[in-house]
């Protein structure tokens, strides 16, 4: 075990994967940094600091700075994967899925199926997402719902350094395309990380906390906000189960349903706007499959149905926070 933050856990995991497996390559804008400049490559190593040191060790043929051409980045990852490699492609901001959406939703998601199983496309697409930096409407979105909706893709959203490593390793060992969502505001979060080839299976939620009175399913950065809310509630003797699904596709339905069967109360916390969200997906799941267990209507704590505003006062109001979660928990307990 080593204590490190999410950023370093991702960096280390990619380092180790590239050492272990020559078919792993990394491509994206400035992932080496400095290509074609006097300062030279490795001038930066990724604007998020997650690919520091890679180009120096593995060279520009494996750590590939690309032009600003997201469709070509993801498309190239797809073609390399169909040809036997394991590319990791970085979208500097998850918001750019609109630019390369076709390669995600019509190409890599569907090859295996359309080709009758006669193709494998094990790409890992790293999508840096989330609000909290006042980066406004086009650089802050939590688009995991749009990709969770697409059959053929897997979607991971680690919240701890250990899970960042474990889910990335799992992605790099599977044969399916993985959308790997990294929350910008979680990069600095520290925790213990197992050494070696730590893997976390997809579709297995992490019980972040057991409390027994209410089930909170929280996504990504929302897990820590749920924990804050739960601390407050604990002071009033209210115990929260906090479930971090870790992957939304596949989703660990069992963990959620088991908890709701005990608690009878569901709160889902999601940084996306409400419509066709993972929150609504889980809300509907529980309504369908734990109908008799539910003692109160599911509470969905989401962003509002608005683009993400720039002004700090508005962005703070946009992102679901501990007070909103706490209030939802109380509403569900007071219900009826």
């Amino acid at each position, binding site marked *: 075990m080593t204590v490190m933050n999410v950023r370093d856990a991702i960096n280390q995991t990619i380092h180790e994967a590239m050492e272990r497996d020559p078919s792993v390559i990394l491509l994206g804008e400035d992932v080496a940094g400095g290509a074609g400049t006097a300062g030279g490559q490795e001038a930066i190593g990724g604007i998020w600091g997650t690919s520091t040191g890679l180009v120096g060790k593995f060279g520009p043929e494996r750590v590939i700075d690309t032009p600003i051409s997201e469709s070509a980045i993801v498309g190239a990852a*797809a073609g390399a994967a169909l040809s036997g490699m394991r590319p990791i492609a970085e979208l500097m901001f998850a918001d750019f899925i609109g630019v390369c959406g076709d390669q995600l939703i019509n190409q890599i998601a569907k090859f295996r199926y359309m080709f009758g199983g006669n193709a494998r496309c094990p790409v890992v697409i790293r999508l840096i997402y989330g609000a909290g930096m006042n980066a406004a409407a086009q650089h802050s979105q939590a688009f995991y719902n749009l990709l969770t909706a697409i059959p053929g893709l897997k979607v991971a959203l680690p919240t701890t350094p250990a899970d960042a490593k474990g889910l990335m390793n799992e992605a790099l060992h599977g044969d399916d395309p993985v959308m790997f969502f990294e929350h910008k505001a979680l990069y600095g979060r520290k925790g213990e990380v197992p050494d070696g080839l730590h893997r976390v299976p997809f579709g297995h939620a992490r019980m972040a906390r057991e409390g027994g009175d209410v089930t909170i399913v929280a996504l990504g950065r929302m897990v820590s906000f749920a924990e804050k809310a739960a601390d407050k509630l604990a002071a009033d003797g209210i115990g929260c189960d906090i479930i971090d699904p870790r992957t939304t596709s596949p989703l660990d339905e069992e963990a959620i349903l088991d908890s709701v069967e005990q608690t009878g109360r569901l709160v889902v916390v999601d940084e996306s706007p409400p419509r066709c969200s993972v929150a609504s997906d889980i809300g509907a799941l529980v309504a369908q499959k734990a109908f008799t267990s539910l003692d109160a209507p599911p509470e969905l704590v989401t962003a509002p149905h608005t683009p993400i505003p720039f002004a700090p006062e508005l962005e703070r109001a946009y992102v679901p926070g501990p007070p909103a979660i706490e209030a939802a928990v109380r509403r569900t307990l007071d219900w009826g």
Partner: protein
Amino acid sequence: MDYTREGLLRAYRRMATIRQFEERLHEEIAKGEIPGFTHLYCGQEAAAVGVCEHLDEADKIVSTHRGHGHCIAKGCDVIGMMKEIYGSREGLCKGRGGSMHIADTSIGMLGANGIVGAGAPQAVGAAIAAKAAGEGKVAIAFSGDGACNQGTTFEAMNMAVVIDVPAIFVFENNHYSEHTGDSYAVATGNDIASRAEAFGMKVWRANGSDFHATYETMAKLLDYVRQTGHPAAIELDTERFYGHFEGDPQRYRAKGELDRIRDERDALKTFRKAPSTRELLEEGELDAIDKQVAELIDRAVEEARGAARCDPSQIDEDVYAAY
């Protein structure tokens, strides 16, 4: 160019297979036997075969919505293809892809593609793999005159030059994208090669309805790419004999255009007339191939008709390797 008898016979067989495969599909579609959208490759045989005769299974190709010709030229199982197009469980893609999504990655055919322009970046990725393998292999993206206007195609060309990989962009200019003429939609009149050149690539041009012309030009192009590892592009001037999709009345064509094309730009006729063909082969040998191919296609249709249908219970197979 030094041709061998075997090489020419093989090329002719491939072209004849494409031609007859497509002519037969045209008939069967008219009868209502075949589901879905089908885009026939007839008329462009020399392009696919002139390119792919230079390749082996480790070279990759990425195809388009009009993919049957590329598949056959790259060596896909013809009976498996026919079964696929009929929607059979025994099809090359288990009936799940159909005409627009035939692939066989085991022989370097990375897939037909229903999204215009999607393939070009994928060829860049396949070329990254080829470069990593270091054995002089290449990756080829087939694109049409319509696809050359899609942003992805431009991005792919630029990226191939920037990261310097052996990707080859083959533009089959059949002068139409659906019902729109190339002189309209390709801003530079109908000159696609010059666009590729503007990305700093070496480009070639050839008559894509003439096997020998395509094959010989591709030989030069491939020499260059395999030796330097740089990307390159080629524009092939060719024609499609049928509508954009089956059912298209082709009202956009000039009067007599189709007759002229069929007369003057038929790859099979042109092949027979070429000096090297006449020197090395007998007409009778080619006639015999035509007959063998006809038998193969008959058998393919017959087998496809009788092949196992898909079972609804299998609908969720192969969505994931593991889920």
